[in-house]
């Protein structure tokens, strides 16, 4: 168990810079998720933490110790790979125990450790098999077993669930969370799946184009995204964006757009200039209301019940807005519909910089 500090880490291949000065601090026992679309640099960052890639600059400390000059084997880390990377020529038991074997742990101790890990992951009955004879979920467990048996300072996960089918993925996600809670070891976890990020992470780093867009706990990332990229990348359906105008009024400000008028409290309304902004609101924050309470007015376009809830696509002005409403929604296409919105849940963005505006 250890803290992880990434300080101004950069990476370039020739003249192409793929990471621009990344800074991250992870507390002891924390769970850091690196989230972003492919090509954002998250896997490169993970490989550099592991020592599989060299850094072009900056420093990485695990448990306060700089590791940039250490070989992967000397960093006391364990890693779970996307393709599991099980050694096809070895039995499951030997796969799990390989790291101990490399470190010269004697056979008896190794056996005990492997069995403990297997029990924890419920794969004791598979120990004699070859990886080729395992199902996807089983391989995943073996890969994790190989990581935990070593009791490292830091776990690294590289998109470990992306090769599993949807049902298994949910199952394994829970499993990983349970493991983390039991072992308490710090974890760095790379994924492009925002649900994994939300469910697993104590800290989420959203990355794009080699920059960290936002580094915060999952709730903050979801509710107070730093910019429009983060806002749209996280959440499904995505956050609704409506361009409009910010107007000052007594006791606060008001957002005005075609079919939309929302009053918002502001700490210092006097300092806010009247300007065009983009309003962002999560679909679940749109609550169906009576006409006289309405702050958003639109016409129903599509109604999609999913079972636990219903998605309604509404035409607001010249924009499409999605609302997540209770399951037994009775509205019809072309009916006019009214919503209220909790002003506290609303985010405003600068149309030019796409950054969040605090009011």
């Amino acid at each position, binding site marked *: 168990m250890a803290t992880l500090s990434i300080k101004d880490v950069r990476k370039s291949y020739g003249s192409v810079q793929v990471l621009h000065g990344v800074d991250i601090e992870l507390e002891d026992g924390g769970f850091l998720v690196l989230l972003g679309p492919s090509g954002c640099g998250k896997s490169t960052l993970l490989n550099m933490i592991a020592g599989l890639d060299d850094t072009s600059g900056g420093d990485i400390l695990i448990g306060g110790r700089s590791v940039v000059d250490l*070989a992967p*084997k000397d960093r006391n880390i364990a890693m779970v*790979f996307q393709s599991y990377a099980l*050694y096809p020529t070895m039995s499951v038991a030997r796969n799990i125990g390989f790291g101990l074997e*490399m*470190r010269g742990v004697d056979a008896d101790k190794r056996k005990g450790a492997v069995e403990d890990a297997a029990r924890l992951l419920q794969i004791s009955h598979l120990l004699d098999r070859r990886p080729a004879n395992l199902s996807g979920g089983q391989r995943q467990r073996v890969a994790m077993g190989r990581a935990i048996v070593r009791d490292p300072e830091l776990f690294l996960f590289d998109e470990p669930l992306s090769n599993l089918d949807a049902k298994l993925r949910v199952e394994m996600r829970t499993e990983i969370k349970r493991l983390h809670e039991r072992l308490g070891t710090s974890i760095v976890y790379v994924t492009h799946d925002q649900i994994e990020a939300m469910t697993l992470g104590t800290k989420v780093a959203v990355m794009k184009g080699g920059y960290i867009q936002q580094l915060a706990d999952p709730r903050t990332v979801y509710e107070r995204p730093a910019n429009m990229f983060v806002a749209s990348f996280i959440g499904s359906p995505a956050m609704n964006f409506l361009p409009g105008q910010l107007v000052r009024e007594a006791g606060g400000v008001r957002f005005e757009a075609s079919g939309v008028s929302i009053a918002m409290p502001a700490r210092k309304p006097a300092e806010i200039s009247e300007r065009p902004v983009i309003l962002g609101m999560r679909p679940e924050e749109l609550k169906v209301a009576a006409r006289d309470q309405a702050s958003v007015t639109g016409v129903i376009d599509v109604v999609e019940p999913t079972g636990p809830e219903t998605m309604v696509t509404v035409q607001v002005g010249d924009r499409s807005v999605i609302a997540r409403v209770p399951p037994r929604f009775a509205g019809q296409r072309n009916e006019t519909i009214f919503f209220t919105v909790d002003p506290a849940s609303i985010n405003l963005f600068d149309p030019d910089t796409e950054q969040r505006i605090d009011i």
Partner: protein
Amino acid sequence: MIESKRHRRMIANIATYVVLVSLSVFCIGPMVWMFLTSLKYEADIVTQTMQYMPSRITFDNYVAIWTQSGFPLLIGNSLVVTLLTVTICVVTGTLAAYAFSRFAFRGRDRLMLGYLVVRMFPAVMVIIPLYVVMRGVGLVDSRFGLALAYTSFLLPLFVWMLKGFFDSAPRELENAARIDGSTRLGAMVRIVVPLARNGLVASSVFIAIAAWNEFLFALMLTTGQGSRTWPVGLQLMVGEFQLPWGVLAAGGILSIIPVIVLFAIVQRTMVQGLTAGAVKG
């Protein structure tokens, strides 16, 4: 519809067999003839009336080639040279192929092309200077020297082939091993090489065959019986005053046998190796 599909499939199968059978005849026919020839008396070969099946059979030709040509010695030399060539290629070539496969460095493509380029300079002209170099280090007329010379044109081939096999061995496995406590070298030896084993065998067989069959270098770089290889020995026996056809044919048949034995042993591995796509696991 189903009927016609089955019909079409059958036609395709028949066509496949026709192709395979005729190609086999094309390939094997000459060797069968060589075998029949090796069983005939010379008078039944050099004759005006063609004899298809030998009317009388003799094994004298085999006895003759075995006893008169120093055949066991020549074949032994060929084996040693082939083995040495494969060993040198495997040791140095595996390292190079691994480097080409795993490291992106400036000029990699150019260097790989360079490996190919060295194959291009005509053997005829390389031989004389090579002879000088070998002579300088006392390797003329030695099996090791000959193997070294073979390496010059077989190593590039080996590196090129093996790189492909390394490319298809997943990099993640190696990364996993490094994190598990192996060095790069350890990961290569323990994980990557075993994974590319079939490919290694296939590439080795290719160069072994080439070394086994080589003629020009062997002719020019060896003098004594001590290091002369089989193809040279055979050509030498043919010489100006010709070896009888039957004996020549017997020699030909004998020279395929070791290769067939080798191939029988490694065939499965080799085919698997050649067909190995990504190794999943």
